[in-house]
């Protein structure tokens, strides 16, 4: 495989190969010397046309741990503000002879466009509302680590599903396994048409019954002004994950969040910092999973 554009195009076998390889990289990250010489002499560029701290740093660390030389390119400091097109930016980068391009862009389909126009391996780090494949992979890896399996699990995704590339990639991934997926949130933020393995709930309590995994999504603060939700306070009251919610959760249900969190909007502070939360584990696993993806791509 040359690129990772989305989970949609992957087979269950591809996903299992990535997760299995990530396990080996997690071992590397636990060593005193957390770096392997695997991709010495190769170069990666992180092209971020949208603000991001954690995804970019996670990719950067993954690349450095694989001994890649790393270039960072952020929109604020680049020629894009001077009007350069994506195509021309790409051709310039190509002239540097880079081997891996990690791209985040606000336009859905941008990663695919870049992949089709370059011999380098392209990894989608989030394209518009389309996909964020490495997030779904690290989520699956984290679930697998804690639960030991994906098959047979009930997984609830709570919040702004329609605008979320994280939810979309997770839906594609979890659907390749034998899972029950539930979308929970206000009707304005849930898709109208859904695949058969997805159940819709407008009520948090009802939706969380019997689930093994709760994935919370970030409520983007600008949604409030677009009238998707009455107010952030009201969202928290009705769909926010609070300590009280634990009373109707399964004892071993875990709580996940892709970050960055809005404490007091989609998640209460006590929940974020509780023993059920595996949010920081997700961050650590992000590095191992991204190392696995980079390692497995060959152009």
């Amino acid at each position, binding site marked *: 495989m040359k690129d990772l554009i989305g989970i949609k195009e992957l087979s269950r076998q591809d996903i299992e190969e990535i997760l*299995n*390889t990530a396990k*080996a990289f997690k071992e590397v990250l636990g060593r*005193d010397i957390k*770096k*392997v*010489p*695997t991709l010495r002499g*190769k170069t990666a560029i992180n092209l971020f046309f949208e603000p991001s701290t954690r995804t970019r740093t996670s990719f950067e660390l993954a690349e450095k741990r694989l001994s890649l030389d790393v270039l960072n390119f952020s929109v604020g400091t680049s020629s894009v503000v001077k009007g350069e097109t994506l195509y021309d930016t790409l051709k310039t980068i190509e002239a540097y002879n880079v081997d891996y391009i990690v791209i985040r862009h606000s336009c859905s389909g941008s990663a695919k466009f870049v992949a089709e126009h370059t011999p380098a391996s392209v990894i989608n780090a989030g394209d518009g509302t389309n996909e964020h494949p490495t997030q779904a992979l690290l989520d699956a890896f984290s679930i697998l680590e804690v639960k030991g399996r994906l098959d047979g699990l009930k997984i609830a995704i709570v919040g702004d599903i329609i605008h979320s590339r994280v939810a979309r990639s997770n839906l594609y991934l979890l659907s390749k396994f034998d899972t029950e997926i539930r979308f929970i949130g206000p009707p304005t933020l849930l898709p109208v048409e859904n695949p058969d393995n997805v159940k819709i709930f407008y009520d948090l309590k009802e939706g969380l019954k019997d689930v093994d995994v709760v994935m919370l999504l970030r409520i983007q603060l600008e949604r409030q002004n677009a009238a998707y939700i009455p107010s952030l306070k009201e969202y928290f009251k009705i769909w926010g994950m609070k300590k009280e919610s634990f009373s109707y959760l399964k004892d071993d249900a875990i709580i996940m969040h892709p970050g960055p969190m809005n404490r007091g909007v989609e998640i209460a502070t006590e929940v974020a910092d509780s023993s059920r939360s595996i949010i920081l584990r997700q961050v650590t696993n992000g590095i191992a999973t991204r190392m696995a993806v980079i390692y497995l791509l*060959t152009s």
Partner: protein
Amino acid sequence: MKKSIEKELLNEQEIERILTRITHEILEKNKGAENICLIGIVTGGVYLAERIKNKIKETEGIDVPLGILDISFYRDDINITKKRKAIKPTNIPFSIDDKKVILVDDVLFTGRSTRAAMDALIDFGRPAEIQLAVLIDRGHRELPIMANYTGKYIPTSRDEKIKVNFKEVSGKDSVLLIKT
């Protein structure tokens, strides 16, 4: 289609005897089992290392530490090969600092795997010594590497293959020479 010919070079009993001999050679050279540890190279080397460990336990009564090493991340052909082999996570749950490390592999061929394994080991610490034990040495070295303990030296041609079967996987131990 050309038919491939298989010839059995070693059977179960012969392999067993070889491992007993290698175990004694290890104990003789290191004057016992104090301060040694075994590292099996994935996958064949791991089975062999486990057996040597058991044999040391039988003769000396000492449980020597056993680690598993996957050398994929240290290979020098990563840019040449398109296909990535499945990885088994490395597991060395003890310090190798100042230990005599016995690397165990099934077949010694070009020596490149041994080079990769030594580079990997250095990332784990500073062993007092690294020694190499192999079941089969088939020649064709591309690097200046030699085993301290060799089960059997088998001169081969480059287009031949050596296949080592293990009870743990195929139900029976054997070493086969395959001509295609």
